[in-house]
């Protein structure tokens, strides 16, 4: 079976598992909504747009760590052995990244919707802000997937996830906040091309290193 087919099957498997239990999906959606609500009750209103932006990304950061941590930890040892016999490491990591990107997109759309509902939405260029959210979802998913693989192999599991991934995700976060700030202020779109290029470049680097390194990790 070609790599493409394997990836397709693995993604379908992830979606099906998720749909059958729905506990993880609902859990993480509830997590985002209640975090936004906690923020709303503590802030009441945010008059300063940069603060609005920063708070949104902080919520997204924590939600995505929580959403993606489980992507390797939930797999039992027996099931991993089974994958080992039927597919290659590349297929597994690519399918996990794609699945996590989908999950993050859903998560961020719901988060942004609810966030703009309770806090008034000051975004000047909504379409471009949406683009930054999409890029953010892809970036978070690509970094966190590999880190969750690493964290799941070490004994400590979930508790290591945050300290391993936060320093690595900060460069992305800096660029994302700048990009979304430009969209927030409604600046001309050509101003932000540099940021988009950097984000894409970091993503390419992260995904290629994941592809190269995962074969060493998964047999452990």
């Amino acid at each position, binding site marked *: 079976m070609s790599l493409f087919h394997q990836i397709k099957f693995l993604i379908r498997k992830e979606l099906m598992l998720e749909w059958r239990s729905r506990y993880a999906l609902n859990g993480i959606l509830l997590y985002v909504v209640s975090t936004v609500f906690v923020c709303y009750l503590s802030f009441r209103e945010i008059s300063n747009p940069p603060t609005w932006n920063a708070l949104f990304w902080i919520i997204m950061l924590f939600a995505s760590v929580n959403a993606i941590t489980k992507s390797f930890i939930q797999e039992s040892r027996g099931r991993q052995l089974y994958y080992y016999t039927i597919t290659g490491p590349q297929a597994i990591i690519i399918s996990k990244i794609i699945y996590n990107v989908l999950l993050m997109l859903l998560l961020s759309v719901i988060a942004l919707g609810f966030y703009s509902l309770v806090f008034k939405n000051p975004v000047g260029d909504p379409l471009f802000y949406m683009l930054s959210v999409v890029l953010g979802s892809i970036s978070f998913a690509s*970094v966190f997937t*590999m*880190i969750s693989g*690493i964290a799941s*192999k*070490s*004994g*400590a599991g979930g508790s*290591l996830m945050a*300290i*391993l991934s*936060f*320093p*690595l995700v*900060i*460069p992305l976060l*800096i*660029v994302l906040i700048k990009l979304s700030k430009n969209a927030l202020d409604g600046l001309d779109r050509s101003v932000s091309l*540099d*940021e988009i290029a*950097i984000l894409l*470049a*970091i993503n390419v*680097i*992260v995904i290629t*290193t*994941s592809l190269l*390194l995962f074969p*060493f*990790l998964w047999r*452990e």
Partner: protein
Amino acid sequence: MNKSWWKILAIVLVLFSITGGLLFPVPAKPILNESIRNIHFHVPMWFAMIVMLLVSFIYSIKYLNKGDENDDLMAVESANVGIIFGLLGLVTGMVWAKYTWGEPWSNDPKQNSSAIALLIYMAYMVLRNSMEEEQKRGKISSVYNVFAFPIMIVLLFVLPRMTDSLHPGNGGNPGFNTNDMAPELRPVFYPACLGWILIASWITTLRYRIRKQENLIS
């Protein structure tokens, strides 16, 4: 003797850079004044850190390819020394910034980036300590090291250039423009960089040998 020439060179260069850095004439610039001498002590720390982290990265790749336990020891010890030199670079920079920029932490992009880089490598150490079994520990932490290094390079060398910084060589310029530096500084600055890099390598090899002996005993 033929093996220790570079250690002697390291001592000579560092001693020279300390005396020269403190005594040689320097250009009198407003605000900077005599504090410009810090360049001979602050900047070489970063060079040593980057070189040691690069060594750590290379040895991690070697470990993943061959699985030799000594490569893993070398990777962790050079990362350790890199962290120490990074901390020294941060402290020397902060002391200097207190008197020149007005505050020890001035929200400068390079300062922030280097602090994050240190966090990455401290996380690497925590990851290592979370595992007992040697082979597993070596493999997983090597994977993290190799994964983190390219992101750290982006963080240290690309992102600071996109914003204004108080450091020289930002906002579009090449990071280290040799033409910017006053000619009086160069005869001390270059030996200082080389000397500290050699000292860092020396410390690393010493620690590596100690660890190897400890492994033999236990």
